[in-house]
């Protein structure tokens, strides 16, 4: 069995780690690219959202590299994401591809179902062993997220442009080799130290912006035109509402983002009193959280036709007015271009600067 899975930012490192533990041969799909998007847009339904199309392209490219089994994420609605796997399978079978599938249902739908998918992947292991593998890989995911979080914060201060991105690469390499839990802990410290060693210019005027919205667009740099690196180089201190470990297990006490899921939901409920699938409700909560932390602005990212985020989009104008924070909404589809996006970001940064009276925040913001 040779498995492949969609690309979603740093998720790939985690998948490689997990499959190695499970003893399953994993064929990494090529990184998301124009080509993957082209395949996905050609085969996929016109009205589906961007993530479906790009991940469809990932699957096809993974199969072309020799994989025979696709690992898909499941779900029970109401977001479309839960039906992706079915639709993508249908489309690929129709296009003549041959493959097996294994669907991983989210742990919230019952741990048994969740573990069952892994038992299919490696029949020899018992539930306890599998749980230990997953747990260890999850710890690695969290360590990766801390590296992400720190680089988002530090990039605004880097003395030499690009040095944080280079340090992040080194940090991820250190983490990649870690096997046991003790090693992961050690590697995490070494990785964070790698970032600590980057020379900073603390006299710099820095704006603070929160990123929130649909998880795939937040996590996949190809889909969001690597907005994070661009903003960091423009001296913007960033915080992101969703990290990979939040996405995998939102119910777990998450300390990467800073607020547990429950808290976020509570914050959002005066404006949106019910979950609406995806990150719809958390997006509202994140906006309020960022405003409370004194951020200069928030950027709401989502794919065109995304249902939960459209609901948030309809409510956010009221939220930002009452919490006095600036908002930029970026809706992205396969027609979006980088130049147009950058123009809008530039305008937004100018707006934030002028709201500050020309001067950004001088003191160093909280860095984990």
């Amino acid at each position: 069995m040779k498995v492949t899975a969609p690309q979603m930012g740093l998720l790939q490192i985690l998948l490689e780690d997990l499959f190695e533990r499970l003893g399953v041969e994993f064929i990494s799909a090529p990184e998301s690219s124009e080509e993957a998007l082209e395949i996905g847009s050609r085969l996929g339904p016109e009205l589906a959202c961007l993530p479906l199309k790009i991940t469809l392209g990932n699957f096809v490219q993974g199969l072309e590299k020799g994989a025979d089994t696709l690992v898909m994420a499941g779900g029970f609605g109401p977001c479309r994401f839960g039906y992706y796997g079915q639709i993508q399978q249908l489309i690929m079978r129709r296009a003549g591809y041959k493959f097996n599938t294994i669907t991983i249902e989210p742990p919230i739908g019952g741990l048994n179902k969740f573990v069952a998918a892994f038992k299919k992947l490696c029949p020899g292991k018992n539930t306890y062993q599998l749980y230990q593998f997953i747990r260890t890989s999850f710890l690695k995911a969290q360590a990766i997220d801390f590296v992400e979080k720190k680089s988002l914060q530090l990039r605004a201060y880097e003395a030499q442009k690009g040095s944080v991105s280079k340090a992040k690469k080194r940090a991820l390499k250190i983490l990649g080799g870690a096997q046991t839990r003790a090693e992961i802990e050690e590697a995490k410290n070494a990785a964070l130290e790698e970032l600590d060693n980057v020379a900073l210019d603390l006299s710099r005027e820095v704006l603070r912006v929160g990123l929130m919205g649909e998880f795939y667009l937040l996590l996949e740099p190809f889909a969001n035109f690597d907005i994070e690196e661009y903003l960091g180089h423009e001296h913007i201190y960033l915080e992101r509402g969703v990290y990979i470990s939040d996405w995998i297990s939102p119910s777990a006490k998450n300390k990467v983002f800073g607020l547990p899921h429950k808290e976020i939901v509570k914050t959002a409920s005066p404006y949106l009193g019910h979950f609406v699938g995806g990150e719809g409700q958390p997006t509202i909560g994140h906006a309020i959280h960022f405003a409370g932390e004194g951020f200069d602005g928030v950027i709401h990212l989502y794919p065109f036709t995304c249902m939960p985020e459209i609901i948030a989009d309809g409510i956010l104008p009221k939220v930002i007015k009452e919490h006095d924070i600036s908002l930029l909404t970026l809706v992205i589809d396969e027609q979006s271009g980088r130049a147009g996006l950058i123009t809008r970001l530039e305008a937004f940064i100018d707006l934030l600067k002028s709201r500050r009276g020309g001067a950004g925040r001088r003191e160093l913001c909280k860095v984990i």
Partner: protein
Amino acid sequence: MSRIKIGIPRALLYYKQYPFWQTFFEKVGAEVIVSGETNAQILNTGLEVAPSEICLPVKVFYGHTLSLSEKCDYVFIPRVVSVEKEAYTCPKFLGLPDMLRALPNAPAILSIDMNAKKKRRYFYQSLLKLGSTINKNPVAILKAYKAAQKAMEIFHRNKSLLPPFEANNNLKIGIVGHPYNIYDPYISLDFLSRLKRQKINIQTLENVPADCIETQTASLAKPIFWTYEKEVVGTVMHWLRTKAVDGVIYLLAFACGPDSMMQVLIEEEARKHPEVPLMSIVIDEHSGEAGFLTRLEAFTDMLNLKKAKMARA
């Protein structure tokens, strides 16, 4: 004392639930005002205030809601989370009251959570709370609930929202899609009347028994977790597999999230049953009548030709 006026927007789930809520509010002692038929003004208001990315029927809903602001004390917008245990409705119905409340000029909104995943008593409790805004007597609220249930039974027995008309049975066409698109003549460019004028026998989703829909969709690899979309897919599967109609027209709104997935299932099914032609029509606020009519005519002509050919053979 004048009666409290409750406004009900003639959009979205109005087409599924209006007898229930109209009866309920009238019986508890309120005056019910249903917004008028969709027109250019309602649509334009909706286009102005609704998020631009949202589907046409929700934009229309915004327009209907605002058209009621001056006319009533409250606009009633339920939050329909789930109407059966194993499924949700479209996410937009989950956030609808909150979206409308977020409008700067929002009218007073009355809402209730309808969630079949929760125990029945939650619904009774919320219904009592909802009714008490109008009538403090719990017995009256309970009676109103019973009457509303009865009204729904009659509604379900009548099967179709389509007033009866004379068809010549030459051609039988199944029209499928969300009722709020099909039965709103402004959204659907009045295509039902056009088919009626041609005396075509029109079948709708309501003509297909619920158990048929369940049996058909049970053959899918993964259950559909949206109730109303399951109905649409199940209906098409039933028609195609039993050849109950000569052709199927599938109407969907641009940017409809669930239908973007269901369309793939439906078209796959149509591929397996080429003897019953299926046409998908995507509508949005820019839909032009001319292009729409051309496609409709071509489709009915094709069905007529096909039928004549078969009669000759």
